[in-house]
């Protein structure tokens, strides 16, 4: 095979090959070409997304480290910092759901402790096709089992998540894993190979042939041949992951290491070239020193293996012994595989011969940046013109609500999260099932609230508004718990960006997200782009997922959705404009994904979030719940169910009741207030000039909704509970 053919086989274009020869000043040999191909894959180089991602605001007075490192770092006061990131593991999970999801969790975990932070929580965002097929159930069960299998074993609680089901994810499920950590701010370690003469040390699992070209596999569409790529899926070892995490954190805490980098996609190649290029140094590595699991591995295999649970440490020679002692306590043996040099070249030797010598910055950052063609897809205007208000009226709104509560998108996910240890480390003040999870920080007495959100259906119908709504909802969830949003991380799941319609979805969504971040004053500190989520040419819904983190200064003030006391007043906060376009009602009751989304007023969103936080911090709020899928009726039902108490609500006059009950729109919060505080709250709402109405009271053991003098919906708690809570055990067992 000539080099010309080889580069194409490895996923590089002729143009890219030419660029490589220019940057190297010569033709690459086979090993070098392999190194370039993994690092210049979409997964590692972001070549189709980088120009759009520049739109995100990435700074704020709190941001210590923005995008570009292993994870973002945000100041949370008292000398402490929060470290977080979300990442996709979609393609591996489509082929081998258990290991695909498990290694997704393991990978994001390493990203966090690589920075020096103690991981404290996992979150995840999942998308599947239909649970009515055996394969759908296999993927769902496997992913949930994989997430639990890894997270439970490493002893970091899985505290929040979201799951949606749409036919478009049938062959290409989404598995986005997020991890949050905390650390003393001065303990930050970067992935830099600085200090000429420092040792390059590899520690952890043995290097095998698993996951070779995993990143290349992740950078193309799934097809019938994908099943053959099963060997490109890595296998996780959470036990090793736990030992490696504890020992690495100990070496960082004792200041024994100069730089730390985990092995993720593109394995050793990525770790070497990224650490060298960040520091402006070079590395000489001896591949014979890499502890191998298999015999006769080719140098390119050693350089690109994605074997899990490995770390690269940069260590001053006189600290090596101390590093060995720390790892030795857990029977781990660090291997010195090379040293930092003054050049800017990464050189690899194998059996005495130089097998690769590449410019670090070129491999790690020299990939071209593409500005793909963008075109509005034909479906966009067609679907936006659909008017859902022409649908016939349902006869029984109670029946509709029960159907929505039993829709897998909305129904209780307890069947899922009881398979995750969400309590280990005894810091979980609010676990799964609320608007956001809350983790206390023992060292500062404060707490972090966290949430993941994304709605592919919305983003499909309107990528710009959908992008805005993803940021708005994730941060609103934090505000509803009383926390100040301090940063977000995003996972952008899209189809093939080389198709103009897909790139249009992507750029629109990014613009919407960026605009929301600016107005809501929340920086993006890291994230991940996952393109090529397509099977047989059919793309998934454009699915940006936002992971948001907030600071709760006084954990005792934490607010939850559960209604509390008979007689409390119910308020609905926020603009009243809603839409049935893309709503859960339209999907679950009418069987349609169509229509246009409600307008997003970001200033109103900001005012609503500011106000609900202020009210919570003034101890004036008994419960708060963000309105999202299924609109007001579902939010009411959820608040009743989690509080095990009913409510009586009067709807504002409406021409079309499904819109009032099930319409969806951003910026809305349902909250309850003790009767003695109601006047004060009304006063504060007026002063803040935020739209709001008093809609009813907490009462009894049924949800009763009237319109004028008519009761239009009456459901006992027990009926709603049966619909809401038994869905997954019925489907899966």
């Amino acid at each position, binding site marked *: 095979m000539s080099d010309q053919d080889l580069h194409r086989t490895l996923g590089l274009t002729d143009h890219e090959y030419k660029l490589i020869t220019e940057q190297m000043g010569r033709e690459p040999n086979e090993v070098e070409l392999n190194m370039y191909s993994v690092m210049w894959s979409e997964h590692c180089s972001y070549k189709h997304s980088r120009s759009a991602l520049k739109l995100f605001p990435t700074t704020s007075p709190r941001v210590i480290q923005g995008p570009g490192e292993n994870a973002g770092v945000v100041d949370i006061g008292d000398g402490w910092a929060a470290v977080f990131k979300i990442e996709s593991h979609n393609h591996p999970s489509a082929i081998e759901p258990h290991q695909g999801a498990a290694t997704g969790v393991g990978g994001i975990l390493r990203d966090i402790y690589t920075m020096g932070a103690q991981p404290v929580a996992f979150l995840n965002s999942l998308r599947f096709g239909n649970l009515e097929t055996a394969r759908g159930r296999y993927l769902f069960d496997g992913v949930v089992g994989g997430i*639990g299998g890894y997270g439970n074993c490493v*002893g970091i609680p899985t505290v929040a998540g979201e799951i949606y089901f749409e036919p478009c994810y049938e062959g290409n499920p989404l598995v986005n894993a997020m991890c949050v950590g905390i650390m003393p701010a001065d303990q930050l370690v970067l992935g830099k190979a600085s200090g000429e003469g420092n040792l390059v040390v590899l520690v952890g699992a043995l290097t095998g042939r698993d996951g070779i070209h995993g990143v290349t596999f992740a950078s193309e569409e799934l097809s019938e041949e994908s099943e053959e790529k099963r060997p490109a899926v890595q296998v996780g070892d959470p036990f090793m992951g736990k030992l490696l995490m504890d020992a690495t954190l100990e070496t960082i805490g004792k200041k024994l290491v100069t730089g730390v980098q985990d092995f993720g996609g593109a394995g050793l190649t990525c770790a070497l070239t990224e650490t060298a290029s960040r520091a402006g140094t070079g590395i000489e590595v001896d591949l014979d020193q890499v502890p191998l699991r298999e015999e006769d591995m080719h140098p390119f295999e050693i350089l690109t293996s994605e074997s899990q649970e490995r770390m690269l440490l940069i260590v001053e020679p006189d600290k090596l012994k101390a590093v060995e002692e720390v790892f030795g306590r*857990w029977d781990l043996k660090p291997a010195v595989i090379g040293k930092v040099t003054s050049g800017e070249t990464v050189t690899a030797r194998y059996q005495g011969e130089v097998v690769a010598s590449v410019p670090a910055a070129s491999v790690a950052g020299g990939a071209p940046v593409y500005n793909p063609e963008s075109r509005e897809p034909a479906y966009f205007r067609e679907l936006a013109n659909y008017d859902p208000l022409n649908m016939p009226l349902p006869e029984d709104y109670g029946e509709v609500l029960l159907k929505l509560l039993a829709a897998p998108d909305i129904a209780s996910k307890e069947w899922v999260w009881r*398979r995750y*240890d969400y309590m280990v*480390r*005894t810091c*979980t*003040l609010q676990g799964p099932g609320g608007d956001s999870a809350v983790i*206390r920080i023992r060292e500062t007495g404060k707490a972090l609230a966290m949430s993941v959100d994304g709605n592919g259906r919305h983003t499909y119908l309107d990528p710009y508004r959908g992008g805005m709504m993803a940021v708005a909802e994730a941060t609103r969830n934090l505000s509803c718990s009383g926390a100040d949003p301090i940063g977000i991380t995003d996972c952008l799941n899209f189809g093939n960006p080389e198709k103009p319609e897909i790139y249009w979805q992507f750029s629109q969504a990014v613009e919407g997200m960026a605009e929301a971040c600016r107005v809501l004053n929340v920086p993006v500190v890291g994230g991940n782009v996952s393109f090529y989520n397509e099977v047989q040419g059919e793309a998934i819904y454009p699915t940006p997922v936002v992971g948001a983190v907030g600071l709760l200064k006084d954990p005792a003030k934490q607010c939850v959705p559960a209604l509390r006391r008979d007689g409390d007043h119910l308020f609905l906060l926020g603009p009243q404009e809603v839409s049935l376009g893309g709503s859960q009602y339209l999907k679950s009751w009418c069987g349609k994904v169509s229509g246009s989304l409600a307008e997003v007023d970001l200033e109103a969103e900001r005012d609503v979030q500011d106000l609900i936080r202020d009210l919570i911090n003034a101890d004036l709020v008994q419960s708060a719940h963000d309105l999202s899928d299924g609109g007001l009726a579902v939010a009411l039902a959820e608040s009743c169910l989690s509080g095990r108490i009913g409510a009586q609500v009067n709807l504002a006059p409406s021409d079309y009741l499904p819109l009032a009950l099930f319409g969806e729109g951003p910026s809305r919060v349902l909250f309850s207030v003790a009767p003695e505080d109601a006047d004060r709250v009304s006063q504060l709402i007026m002063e803040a000039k935020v739209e709001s109405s008093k809609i009813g009271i907490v009462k009894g053991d049924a949800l009763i909704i009237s319109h004028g003098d008519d009761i239009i919906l009456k459901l006992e708690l027990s009926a709603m509970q049966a619909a809401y809570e038994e869905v997954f055990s019925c489907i899966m067992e």
Partner: protein
Amino acid sequence: MKFGVIVFPGSNCDLDSYHLVRDVLNKEVEYIHYSEKSVGRRDVIILPGGFTYGDYLRSGAIARFSPVMNAVAEFADKGGLVLGICNGFQVLTEAGLLPGALCRNHHLQFRCEQVFVRVDNNSLPFTLSASLGKVLEMPVAHGDGSYYAPPELLEEMKANDQIVFRYTDQNGDVTPQANPNGSLENIAGVCNRAGNVVGLMPHPERAGEKVLGSRHGLIIFKSIISYLTGREVVRNV
């Protein structure tokens, strides 16, 4: 009064026990590395939850060969108090310090949830502050918690009053619905014949603060403390 928490490779609830003893109960506590040959001068040894050696073989089957386990056995032999929680319970059964075995949950899934357990023996150093039949709310979080003992062993255990905790409903009734893992006769925790070694699958260390949902787990630690305090008082007379 000194507590020791053993840290095996893969233990992950060591921090939770340590935190509870130090920060909630204000007692002295130290970690004990699995490679230690002695547990030192300590009054209570806790084997915490987690996934020792990944539980890749049988839960607890490898950890029981750790050097420290000989010391734990000696300590128990001399009457020292040993508490095994979750994976710690599994290690103690594998080590033969407690009777029976913990098998895969009958539904084959990991299960994390709040459960109720009833105190069926309150004459132990671990339970003396509880009334007999007291119902405690505590979380479970395990995949291998289905307790089993062969019939003759079970009879012997009953005769010796070795069944300490049973899964029940809120009212203290043993029901199939209250059993989270298929344990024989809803057994959640047992003790050795001498009553100085106790293991249980639920996590009392996760039920020690109101903000975490329940404080019922404290009764076990408070029993231990009042037992040891009583002994210290007697010793000092």
